Every structure is written in C-alpha cells, then in structure tokens.
C-alpha cells in the first residue's frame, strides 16, 4: 500500500501545546512517527545563567504552563540543597498542600484535554470549570491565576490567609461531589472504554528502558512515585497510597489519573488536619547579593506527569552556572511517544499523546 506522510500539528485542534508529529501512514496504520519539538524552545537554561538566583523564579515557572508549581518546587529544592537552607515544618506542610492542589488542577486540565480529544465536550467543559475553581484558590493565596511564584527558598512566601483552609475544604467538597457524575458520564462510559482500551500500550520493559515515570509507569503496575520513594516536603508525614493499573494502555493511565486526583484530595484533608503552627519560611540572605557556595546537586520531585528532576551547578557566583531540568514529558514525548505510535490507528494519535500527558513547553524549555 502507498505510504503517505501526514503532519499532525502544530496547528491542530487535537494538539495540546505547540508540538508536531510527522507520521508515515499506510492506509490507516502508522508505520513511523517522528516527534518534532522545538516550537517552544526559548533557551531557558541559558537565560537562567544570566539572571540571579532569585530572579529565576519567574523564569522556571513558565517552563510548564499547566503545572508551574512543581517547577517552583524543584528549583527551590535545588537552591536549598546547594545553599543548605532548612524549611520550617509548617512551610513543608503548606508546600505539600499547595502542590497537591496544583496536581488536582493539572489532572483536571489533562482530563479536559483527553475528553476534548475524544470529542466529549460535556465532560471536558465540566473539568475545565472545576479547574477554574482551584485557580480561584491560587489567586486568593498568591495573587496569580496561572503563575504563582509562591514557593520560595526557605519555605513559602506567606502563610494561608484567614479562612483559607475552609475555602480549600469547601471547594474540594464541591468538586468531589461531582465525582459520581464524572464516573457515570466518562469513566464508566462504554465508548470511552472502547476508545481507550488496548490503545497506546507501553509495556513495563519499554517504559523502564525509555525512562518512563508517573502515570506511564504506574499504568503498567509499578508503584513508582517519588513522593513515596524519595519523600520531600511533608509527604512522609501522612499515610497515603500509590495507585496503579496493570495494562499499560491509555485506559489504565487515565484511570490512574482519576484515582490519583481523588487520593490527592484525601491527602490534602489529612495534611490540613496534621498541619502544625509556626513559621512558614526561614529568612534567606539579601537576595540581591546572594551568592551560593560552589557545588552541584541533583534533586527530584513528582510533578503531575512524572518525575521532575533538576541538575544544578553553582560556581560560587550570584547566578546558577548551569541548570538542567529533567522534565517528565521529555522522555514521554520523544522516546515513548514515537514507540507507542507505531502500529496505531491515525484516529488515536491525539488519544495516545494526551494519555501520555505530554506538555510541549516542558520538552522544549
């Protein structure tokens, strides 16, 4: 049969983010897929070398639009490790709560993208509405809807305002009240099952070899979660579990996302109960003259898409000498995606890509 070259994106309704895939198709079947990133490359890591340690906070969060908070977290962790700064206990709890809220928001965004990709407007609109309720919380806490710059070396910028805990609880309750609706409309929908089962299968061996993490790995039954294996912030202070599914297809991954969202909400409630009183940040030196001793560090945390890492080098100056972000979308969007697409139907390209949760700006940086 004749082979045809098909461009999927960058201008495409099914494409989340500015990314493109060159597909070689034979009839309906994909025989080769070449991911083509770079549409969003800004040279972040180069620009970071030109800005002082503290000025980089507005930079790092723009590396991932969907969940900027984990980016702030990882950079703070890197700086704290290099400079040897401790974070007070309450600061750790607030960080965890804040990151889990961001994870719920990010997963709702993912649900929007996935349902939208399947043409299921109804659920996608609900998910986007609920994400907005969480953004309202962020707006009250930090003043920004999308970019917050809330986590800071030494803690968080400010304590929760009065009554904020109640508003978190009521918002999460109102979203949680709709979980049965989501289940009936989407997760137990036979058409969703037909569309997602057996699609985009990434076996455990492949996922391990390709550097998979996050849902890609948990979707194959491996309970790998940095929050559990290498705990940071306050994740080891409360009990919670890692959710897995066995099959490694899009269906498993979306179900993992769903269960994780609910687990995150439960975790927020537990963290709120256990949260101690006290300071939320330790003072850092004057940021305009701040120099960090020579050294390098690799830190990692769990973003909503998988393991997020940062290799950061200081030469004793007032700016990072080199920072390299290990973003989860990078192996997922380049190595895993190219492999998972081969043999798939062209109707499933967006399906597979969004179930792998590829966020383009994270790849390009």
């Amino acid at each position: 049969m004749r082979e045809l070259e098909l461009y999927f994106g960058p201008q495409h309704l099914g494409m989340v983010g500015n990314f493109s895939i060159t597909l070689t198709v034979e009839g309906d079947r994909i025989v080769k897929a070449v991911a083509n990133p770079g549409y969003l490359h800004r040279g972040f890591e180069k620009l970071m070398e030109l800005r002082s340690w503290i000025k980089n906070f507005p930079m790092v969060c723009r590396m991932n639009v969907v969940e900027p908070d984990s980016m702030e977290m990882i950079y703070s962790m890197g700086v704290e490790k290099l400079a040897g700064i401790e974070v007070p206990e309450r600061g750790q709890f607030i960080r965890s709560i804040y990151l889990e809220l961001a994870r719920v928001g990010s997963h709702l965004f993912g649900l929007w993208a996935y349902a939208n990709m399947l043409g299921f407007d109804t659920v996608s609109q609900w998910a986007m509405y609920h994400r907005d309720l969480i953004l309202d919380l962020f707006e009250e806490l930090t003043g920004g809807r999308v970019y917050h710059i809330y986590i800071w070396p030494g803690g968080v910028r400010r304590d929760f305002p009065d009554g904020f805990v109640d508003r978190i609880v009521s918002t999460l309750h109102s979203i949680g009240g709709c979980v049965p609706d989501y289940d009936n409309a989407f997760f137990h929908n036979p058409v969703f099952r037909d569309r997602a089962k057996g699609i985009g299968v990434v076996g455990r061996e492949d996922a391990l070899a390709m550097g998979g993490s996050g849902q890609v790995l948990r979707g194959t039954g491996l309970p790998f979660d940095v929050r559990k294996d290498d705990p940071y912030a306050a994740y080891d202070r409360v009990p919670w579990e890692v959710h897995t599914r066995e099959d490694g297809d899009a269906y498993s991954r979306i179900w993992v996302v769903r269960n994780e969202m609910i687990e995150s909400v439960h975790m927020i409630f537990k963290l709120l109960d256990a949260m101690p009183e006290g300071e939320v940040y330790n003072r850092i030196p004057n940021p305009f003259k701040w120099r960090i001793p020579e050294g390098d560090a690799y830190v990692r945390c769990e973003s909503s898409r998988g393991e997020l890492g940062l290799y950061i080098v200081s030469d004793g100056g007032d700016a990072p000498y080199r920072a390299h972000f290990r973003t989860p979308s990078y192996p997922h969007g380049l190595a895993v995606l190219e492999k998972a697409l081969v043999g798939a139907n062209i109707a499933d390209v967006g399906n597979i890509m969004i179930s792998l949760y590829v966020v383009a700006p994270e790849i390009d940086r």
Partner: protein
Amino acid sequence: MSATLAGRLEAVFKDIRTGADGDARLTVAATPESVLPVLVFLKDSGYGYLQLVSCVDWIERGEMEVVYVLSAYPGGPVETEFESIVLKTRVPRDTPSLDTAIDVFPVAEPYEREIHELFGVHFEGHPRLVPLFLEREYEIPPFRKDFDTREYVEDVFGAVPPVVEESQEP
C-alpha cells in the same frame, strides 16, 4: 567482594574517583573511555534508570563535562544503597566527542541529541544527530558559555526594521 558500591567500582575500574555526599548520593568521575563500561556496571548493580544526561561547559578549564544521573527503580532485582549516582566525565572543549550510551540506555537518545545541538558535543554511533529544537544555524552552539545571547539578539532581531506604513491610498 567489597561491600560498598564505591569500593567495588574502584576495584574494577582503575581510573575513576568516587566521592559519596552525605545524602545518599554517589559521585563518580570517570575518563571518557571508561564511561560506557561504568554505565554497564552500574546498570548491572541495579541502577537501571537513567534520569538525565546533562552537560556543563567549564570554559576556563577548557573542558566540557558530560553528566549522567542514574537511579534505581523500586522493586528492581538488586538492592541499591544510593538514591542517585552522578557520573561525570570531561572531554576537551575543542573536539568534544564521546561514545553514545544508547545501547545501554535507550532513553539517552533524545538527551544526547539535545546536547549535540546545544553544546556541540559529538556522540559517536548515535543514529540521528539531527537538529532537535533549533531552526536557525548558529556559529557557536548556543548553550556554550562563549555564546553571548544578548549580543546575538541585538545583531539578529534588533536588525529587523519595523514596517513603515507606506502612504495611504492614492
């Protein structure tokens, strides 16, 4: 057999130096030739998860430092004692070249491609060292320290003139 991984590493490979940080991290410095055997050794020791391949341009020393960060997946076949292992190697800055690690870790492919593009480090045996991100040609790979991005911006984008509106309809 020596108990610690560091001890075993130094016993097997002569030309490497190891240093353990306090917090469950082992730093290994190796020569470019021994990078691949060390990677294989570490993979067999249970560190089967290549998290990152990075590169640092030490311009004053005239060297490029390629960094491999490894860790272990939970439930792996072997018990591991370190959270992560940082393997560093240095190549000369004028002719930076290394063997590719794709055969050991397939995930190294996009990382090596990126380093080739942004730092100009050549990876021997890599199947597609084609541009990943960039559209324009750069004389110096842009992530090297001697590439002055501000000057470049001034030269390229600052030189584009604003569009002057021609006079209105005759």
